[in-house]
């Protein structure tokens, strides 16, 4: 943005007011960066040292050590299970929430706000923070991870689904109401078919995201590949850490391929 401002202003492409606005935004941006740089608590010597430190670290990762590979792959499978089961439950649980949070299906104003409250609290709290809480409740392990991912996903899926419900074509709804169908049957025949494509798209998208999220649950003790990574890093076993990182990379790429295939197949 800054680059184009300077270049474009030489031609006076913008009116005086626009130019002042642009300079204002530019000055504000610079001010914010200046404030951040000058007051952030870092030891600058470490900053200049950082590339060397990073190089050193990566140097110690080579070559990756595959001796623990079978254990890594087993836990990787567990990671996939966490993401899949949690997504499945979250998607099912998000259906009633979406129904509550959509203006045109919610029974009354109070239920609308209940629905929105669930969505906002689920969405604003990160998976890791949910995981911290559930590890405290369920103890360390994959159950806490599944519940954490579920809680975070309900808001995501519910919000997008609720928006899809609000955007449907209302004419079929009117037509089915005119046939004397009950509220539930109107939803099943006029609303559900219209939001089906969104439902599948959002579920697949969230599964893809959850695959990534479930790789870090282990760092707070909530199961999955993160536990092995944490262990390797804590014992400075960088060569094994490298294997784990490569395994995660493979998993995520594979996940993206699978979700792209599913999207093509279903949508």
């Amino acid at each position, binding site marked *: *943005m800054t*680059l*184009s401002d300077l270049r474009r202003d030489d031609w006076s492409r913008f009116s005086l007011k626009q130019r002042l606005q642009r300079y204002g935004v530019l000055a504000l941006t610079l001010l*914010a*960066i200046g*404030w*951040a*740089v000058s*007051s*952030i*608590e*870092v030891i600058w010597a*470490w*900053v200049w*040292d*950082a590339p060397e*430190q*990073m190089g*050193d*670290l990566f140097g110690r990762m080579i070559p990756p050590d595959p001796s623990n590979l079978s254990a890594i792959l087993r836990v990787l499978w567990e990671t996939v*299970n966490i993401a*899949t*089961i949690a997504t*499945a439950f979250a998607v099912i649980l998000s259906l009633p929430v979406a129904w509550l949070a959509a203006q045109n299906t919610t029974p009354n104003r109070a239920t609308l706000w209940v629905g929105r409250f669930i969505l*906002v*609290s689920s969405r*604003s*709290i*990160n998976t*890791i*923070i949910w995981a*911290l*809480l559930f590890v*405290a*409740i*369920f*103890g360390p*392990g*994959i*159950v806490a991870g*599944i519940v954490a991912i579920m809680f975070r996903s309900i808001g995501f899926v519910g919000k997008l689904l609720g928006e899809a419900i609000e955007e449907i074509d209302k004419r079929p709804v009117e037509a089915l109401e005119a046939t004397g169908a009950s509220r539930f049957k109107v939803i*099943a025949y006029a609303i559900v078919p219209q939001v*089906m*494509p969104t439902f599948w798209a959002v579920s697949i998208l969230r599964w893809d995201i959850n695959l*990534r*999220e479930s*790789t*870090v649950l282990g*760092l*707070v003790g909530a199961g999955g590949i*993160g536990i092995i*990574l*944490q262990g390797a*890093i804590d014992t400075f076993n960088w060569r094994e850490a490298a294997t784990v*990182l490569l395994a*995660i*990379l493979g998993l*995520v*790429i594979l996940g993206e391929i699978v979700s792209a295939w599913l999207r093509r197949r*279903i949508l």
Partner: protein
Amino acid sequence: MSTDPIDGPDVPAGAAGGATSGAVATRDHWRKKSFIANPVARWLVYGGVILYVVWTLGTLPIDWARVAEGVERAGRIFGGAFPPSFERSGLLIDGFLESLKIAILATFGGVLLSIPIAFMAARNVVPRAVFYVGRAIIIVARSFHPVIVAIIFVKAVGFGPLAGVLTLIVYSIGFVAKMLAERIEEIDFGQVEAMKAAGAPYLSTLIYAVVPQIMPRQVGLTIYQLDSNLRASAVVGIVGAGGIGSTLANAFGRYDYDFALAITMVIVGAILLSEAVSGQIRKRL
């Protein structure tokens, strides 16, 4: 009459087929065409899904005694969390401002680095070999959750906000460079050819013909990324990369649940506020 199994209500309505040609004169039988036409394949898929769910749920190591104890513990946590304590608001504000600084610097650095990487990863402006390098950088940056990146940076450069900034720079590259590269691939190539025809060197062509076309998208992405980085900075702090997340992790570690709740409330409030602001700005662009 066919013996098709019952189709669940969850079968999507995509199954369109031809007419029921072999029907009898008085047709009183109709079944919705299933999404998976082949009955064997369909039952294999259904069976596989059921088997998978039952098997994974069945092998979940749930220790019910531990859970019962955990629910009790949850009661204690929530009991201890109410009412939220804003007594040490100095600590809270410091943590939050640090998160903000981390987000600003990471956005600045990330967006700056994203521009060259995005050009590298756009098929239509660089040679094939460079394209693969660019794409590989983006894939790696996108594949690792910021928390994993943060742990590695914390080990390399020590605890504190520096690790947070570096982490979120990587995170920003993963998203901004990807979106920007896609935008570059969609640009109107006529302008580029016009510049080339005028005899402009390669770099000038990029700056004059491509940059103006991607600028509006870039500004929108930057604002979006600032918002994302603020969110993420609350998380990477938990593994020691500075900001309000570190404050939260400390409070949790010391069983100060009332302070932890106060921090969580501030994080949620800040995220909602920044989402609203960034949404408004992007709408006006």
